């Protein structure tokens, strides 16, 4: 039990929270980077290799497209269905292979990215399916290659939805990053477990909850702002502020 009245409690709390926040942001940040790098192409391929999709017949082979689609579907479904805590443990040999250890924030990035990639890929799939097929035809009629269609039509036209999807993904990565803390992955999750739970410091617990809440709120706010910024679907809102009557 930690005594809040003891000397050095508040500076200690501050120090622990600062380090924890830093670790959380690091884990989440790098995991998000990998999630986007892998999840975006994965999502595009998920849609593209479907019947009638852009990559229905890669290299002119229709069966190849079908096989790729089945395999990706399988991987994504697998990734989405295994509970995180089990995935994390099951990935330990792999994590050790990649990072060299399975303890600490860097090691935690591996299971975080692995769980977030299929999640984000589904979000990408949904966003891209929303793009009007007429736009793809318009690009095709201009002689666009498949990659040009992805880069100039599919991704830019679904950008707002992608941003909102990414924000949801990041929120769940933050969520999972706290769980990583329980197995010595560092970050705010570990602070909550070590101090809040094992040493009964309610103040630590509350501080962690508030910090995570603030991070998620800021993230959502940023995502909403960006999504609106990139959406040109509606006419810009006219100013609704009435001119005050002259007195």
């Amino acid at each position: 039990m930690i005594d809040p009245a003891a000397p050095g409690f508040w500076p200690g709390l501050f120090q622990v929270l600062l380090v924890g926040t830093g670790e959380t942001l690091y884990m989440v940040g790098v995991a998000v980077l990998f999630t986007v790098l892998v999840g975006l192409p994965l999502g595009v391929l998920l849609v593209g290799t479907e019947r009638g999709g852009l990559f229905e017949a890669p290299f002119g082979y229709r069966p190849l497209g079908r096989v790729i689609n089945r395999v990706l579907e399988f991987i994504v479904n697998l990734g989405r269905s295994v509970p995180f805590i089990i995935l994390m443990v099951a990935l330990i040999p792999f994590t050790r292979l990649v990072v060299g250890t399975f303890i600490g924030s860097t090691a935690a990035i591996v299971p975080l990215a692995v769980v977030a990639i299929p999640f984000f890929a589904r979000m990408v799939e949904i966003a891209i399916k929303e793009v009007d097929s007429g736009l793809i035809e318009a690009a095709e009629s201009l002689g666009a290659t498949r990659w040009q269609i992805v880069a100039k039509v599919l991704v830019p036209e679904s950008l707002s939805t992608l941003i909102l999807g990414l924000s949801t993904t990041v929120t769940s990565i933050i969520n999972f990053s706290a769980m990583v803390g329980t197995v010595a992955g560092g970050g705010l999750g570990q602070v909550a477990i070590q101090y809040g739970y094992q040493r009964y410091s309610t103040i630590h617990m509350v501080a962690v909850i508030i910090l995570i809440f603030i991070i998620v709120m800021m993230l959502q706010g940023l995502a909403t702002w960006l999504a609106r910024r990139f959406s040109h679907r509606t006419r810009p809102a006219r100013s609704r502020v009435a001119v005050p009557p002259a007195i």
Partner: protein
Amino acid sequence: MISVKHVFKTFGSGAAATTALDDVSLEVARGEIFGVIGQSGAGKSTLIRVINLLERPSSGTVTVDGEELTRLSPDQLRLARRKIGMVFQHFNLLAGRTAQGNVELGLEIVGVSGAERRRRSLEILDLVGLADKAGAYPAELSGGQKQRVGIARALAGNPKILLSDEATSALDPETTRSILDLVKTINVQLGLTVLLITHEMDVVKRVCDSAAMLENGRILEQGSIVSLLSTPGSRLVHELFPLGEIAPHPGNTVIEITFSGGSADRPVIAQLARTYGLDVSILGAAVETIGGNQAGRTRLELPGTPLANAAPIADLRGQGLLVEIVGDGAVVEGSRA
């Protein structure tokens, strides 16, 4: 310029199969505006999409500017498509790009560099009358303005052919006229061949040099408007100049005269009345200016049986007019002048 030969297109298979195009052959000459008309579901969109192979025909060949598209590899086809601009009914503009950005899309695809792209896109936007809207997003444009952007995008890459699928059917009559005038201007100024799909006869009247009529996936008639005007019983001409229902006139003769070019200016009816002393009643008339010439149809009622009116009818035909004798609700006899 465009040659479609024996094209079939079937969607689905087995019992659920629909034949959208049934042995369609079509010839569009260089520099003309060719209109395809037909009712909803006739296969018009399928036909136009087959021409740039957005839809691959089940069989048959499509040749554009001497190149048989149906034989090209995917890469060759992409290059060939750059010669064919397409305008869509629902505009299909990228919502995330400005008018200028949309026009630049085609140029980016072809690999035109930044400065040249800006110059060219502004030039084309100016041509379609949208220079002042270059920075506007599609959501900030009216339907007519969006379609102008669509046309500008299709033209940016200097195509030889413009395909237009119901480009005006989402627009009001006045905007339709201004868009059609634009198409005509482009056709004349840039020497562009235009194939347009429409279900509005007014569109054909206003801009087309030639037309084809599509029904249930088959071409019923095709040819230049002038030649169709002298084709007896032409469905296209009847729809271009609708005279309405024919009421029965027992004992009398109802004839329909189609005139075009020089014959339009002569006082045919007055002459008929004078020469034969006939009480001619005009039951209906439709006159339009097509390709700068007056053309139209008139429905007349002559007293007496067709046999009794043989002489005046022969006289009219002798003047180079297309005369069809109409019975109770149908053309019963037609013959070439």
